[in-house]
């Protein structure tokens, strides 16, 4: 099977910023004789107004918990001047206006790429409603203003509801480049209305991909080769067919699917399959062997990815040299909703109901497998039960389309088990880094070098980001990179390369501070004068986190700073270590993410990212043995639970700078903040994750 379209997140940011005019708002000039006759009336690609006065907003960024349904509605409603209580939201299909070259949700970009576009869309729709009212009153539109789902005639105080104006407004040409409110006039941006999706998520009615039901639908479970890249040599499905409820057994590109009239029967039928695998060339891969191989690679020079000054000469003249090797394991995303897709393939088209982060990839995958034109493949986005990067892939969509094609025209829902999820993920890559740091006689850093060994994935810098672009001003820097080949599929995982590289960087910087005999906060301050926003969050976190102040007996602090996704954050973690067991009590995070749209959601995302990262410090790691993933379910890949949750305090720097990202901001920072606190507690450096208690006693 072909891999789905490769995604370059940075490239996307550039191209989407360059798009302008009608494409940005998706104006559709009404054609004569084709007036809309039923349903809410479309003013542009993001706004529909119903004759019942409801306002339907198109949410083109997937909702996976990060609050897009609410925060994107705030951007639209800020200019639309609609009644917040009358808002309905829906997830649209794939259209160029929702993302060019591709529609998707990744890279903590939703607010960054939508901030101007959606305010423009809201303002344009508002102006059309005002124009419609002005025409009805036969006055100039300057005499009208919009407020709370109505247009008001300022001379007479007459009001017309948006609902009563919708039909006329929808026939008007759309204005472009409507002036936007200055920040001082914001009524919704910068406030925290309750999330629009909460009521649906407390009574079971929110529709996730896994909840899709179609008339006559069947259910599938797929057995894949336990070794990556392996293939079916032969199989016998006769015992599976004997399981009650099983309808069919089908071989597809990467396995054998059992199709039944319910999910459980499909899973039971799958257990009864007999399959002989051709395991392929990766059948002997193991984690200990990979570590040895990568250590050998790190002993040799790699490709230079950053060079400042002359590190070799500076090291030769340094008063003190610090060296360390850091390692991080493969990680699984493990979103709570197991991967799934429901697909119906007909001769004339294909429908895909899916919780997807990249709808364009899902659509292209469906088109490629069915042979249908892309526009005949409709993607129906559902709520995502977590994404974290995993749902950016279309591998699970491809499987479901192949199965549904074999069962055409019957719709089929493919549901992965948790075991499938952990054993067939596209993993956060493992990584191995060899560091050196040089200090002068006063303890000032004069040289820094890093040699990174990490499987390549995604864009050009993903394997090295977080070290290559580190913000400390050190006069001589050399960063090198070597890409090993492992056969293990890797991809984006919340915060991408920063997830491991900021751990390495910030933990090693702490080693340099210790070698210099300096306080970790003081040491960083001196090196961050050139990055004032990062310095500012460091100072704020140190102040709010009581850095330098006494702690209860047995508790220790660690600090770390990260600049990723256009935002800046610093964290101070308080921990204790008892018999090697690490407990985190309190995390204070200061964050500067530019203009904030919804502070409560920013706070949620900081907490969320911290929990996601914290699990990797103490508990989570994917290991390989005989080409197979060892971890099978939440018993041996056990994320953070409520009794391990520290108190998290979030301090947001007020700002009117362009919005930065937030979904991936705090995940990398928590890791070094905790391991640096562990060093303060034990004088032992954590150079490999997850922490094994035996290493600390």
């Amino acid at each position, binding site marked *: 099977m072909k891999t789905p379209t490769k995604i370059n997140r940075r490239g996307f940011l550039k191209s989407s910023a360059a798009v302008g005019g009608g494409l940005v708002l998706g104006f559709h000039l009404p054609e004569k004789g084709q007036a809309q006759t039923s349903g809410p009336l479309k003013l542009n690609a993001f706004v529909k107004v119903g004759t019942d006065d409801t306002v339907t907003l198109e949410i083109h960024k997937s*909702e*996976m*918990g990060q*609050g897009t349904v609410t925060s994107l509605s705030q951007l639209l409603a800020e200019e639309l001047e609609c009644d917040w209580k009358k808002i309905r939201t829906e997830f649209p299909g794939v259209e160029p206006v929702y993302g060019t070259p591709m529609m998707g949700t990744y890279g903590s970009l939703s607010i960054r790429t939508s901030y101007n576009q959606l305010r423009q869309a809201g303002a344009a729709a508002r102006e059309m409603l005002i124009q419609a009212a002005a025409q009805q009153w036969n006055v100039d539109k300057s005499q009208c203003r919009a407020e709370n789902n109505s247009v008001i005639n300022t001379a007479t105080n007459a009001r017309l509801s948006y609902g009563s104006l919708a039909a006329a407004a929808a026939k008007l040409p759309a204005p472009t480049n409507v002036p936007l409110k200055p920040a001082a006039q914001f009524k919704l941006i910068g406030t925290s209305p*309750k*999330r629009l*999706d*909460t*009521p*649906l*998520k*407390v*009574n*079971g*009615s*929110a529709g*996730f991909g*896994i*909840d899709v*039901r179609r008339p006559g639908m069947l*259910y599938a479970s797929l057995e894949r080769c336990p070794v990556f890249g392996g293939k079916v040599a032969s199989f016998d499905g006769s015992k599976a067919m004997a399981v*009650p*409820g099983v309808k069919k057994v089908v071989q597809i590109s990467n396995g054998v699917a059992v199709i039944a009239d*319910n*999910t*459980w*029967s499909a*899973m039971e039928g799958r257990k009864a399959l007999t399959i002989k695998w051709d395991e392929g060339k990766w059948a002997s891969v193991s984690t200990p062997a990979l570590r040895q191989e990568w250590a050998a690679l790190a002993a040799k020079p790699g490709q230079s990815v950053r060079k400042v000054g002359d590190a070799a000469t500076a090291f030769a003249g340094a008063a003190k040299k610090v060296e360390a090797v850091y390692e991080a394991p493969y990680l699984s995303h*493990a*979103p*709570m*909703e197991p991967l799934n897709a429901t697909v119906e393939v007909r001769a004339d088209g294909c429908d895909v109901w899916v919780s997807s982060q990249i709808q364009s990839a899902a659509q292209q995958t469906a088109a490629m497998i069915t042979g249908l034109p892309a526009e005949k493949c409709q993607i129906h986005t559902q*709520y*995502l*039960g*977590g*994404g*974290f990067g995993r749902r950016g892939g279309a591998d699970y969509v491809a499987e479901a389309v192949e199965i549904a094609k074999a069962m055409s025209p019957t719709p089929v829902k493919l*549901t992965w*088990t*948790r075991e499938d999820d952990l054993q067939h993920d596209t993993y956060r890559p493992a990584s191995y880094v060899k560091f050196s740091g040089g200090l002068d006689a006063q303890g000032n850093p004069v040289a820094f070098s890093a040699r990174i060994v990490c499987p390549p994935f995604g864009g050009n810098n993903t394997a090295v980001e977080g070290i290559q672009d580190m913000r400390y001003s050190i006069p001589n820097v050399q960063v090198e990179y070597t890409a090993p080949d492992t056969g293990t599929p890797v991809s984006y995982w919340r915060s991408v390369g920063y997830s491991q590289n900021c751990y390495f960087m910030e933990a090693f910087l702490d080693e340099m501070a210790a070698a210099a005999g300096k306080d970790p906060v003081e040491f960083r301050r001196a090196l961050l004068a050139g990055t004032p926003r990062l310095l500012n969050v460091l100072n704020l976190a140190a102040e709010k986190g009581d850095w330098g102040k006494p702690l209860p007996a047995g508790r220790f602090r660690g600090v770390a700073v990260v600049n990723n996704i256009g935002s800046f954050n610093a964290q101070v973690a308080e921990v204790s270590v008892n018999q090697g067991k690490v407990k985190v009590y309190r995390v204070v995070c200061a964050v500067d993410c530019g203009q904030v749209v919804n502070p*409560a959601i920013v706070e*949620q995302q900081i*907490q*969320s*990212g*911290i*929990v*996601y990262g914290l699990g990797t410090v103490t508990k989570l790691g994917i290991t390989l043995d005989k080409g197979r993933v060892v971890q099978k*379910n*939440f*018993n041996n890949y056990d*994320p*953070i*639970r*409520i*009794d391990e*949750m520290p*108190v*998290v305090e979030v301090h947001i720097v007020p700002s009117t700078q362009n919005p930065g990202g937030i979904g991936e901001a705090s995940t990398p920072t928590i890791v070094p903040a905790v391991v640096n606190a562990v060093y303060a507690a034990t004088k032992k450096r954590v150079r490999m994750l997850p922490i094994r208690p035996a290493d600390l006693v």
Partner: protein
Amino acid sequence: MAAVKFTLNGKSQTVDVVPQMPLLWVLRDHLGMTGTKFGCGMALCGACTVHINGQPVRSCVTQVSTVAGKNVTTIEGLSADNSHPVQKAWIEADVPQCGYCQSGQIMTAAALVAKTTNPSDNDIDEAMRGNLCRCGTYQSIRQAVHLAARYQAQSGGAQAKGGAR
């Protein structure tokens, strides 16, 4: 196949399925009640939590034959209008992020506040540690359970409205 009769959200229900089928899949695939979620299939994550005779139970490892004659309550049966004390508290604290685990979290919390008048943070951790949340909503969950306990007290106290029917 065998007919199994039980009470589901206050109404009599008969299903004709393989008796070993987990209650989770009977609810989701046969009865179309998709509020109860699949997360692990091994009682490790709590996403599938329902009440059986008022007790929180993992429906992914509960064979449907074992609920014959019993009262089963799912998230859909907690209230018709988000008025259960735990739902009110979850809305007030804006707990859910992706929301996938929240049916299970809410069912576990409903059982807790039904029997514990004023739960401590430790009581909450003890009762809720079987429910995983990958979005990390735990701080909001703690806050919301305290709030739910207060709402529960206002609406007649523990035992009065615990979700069991």
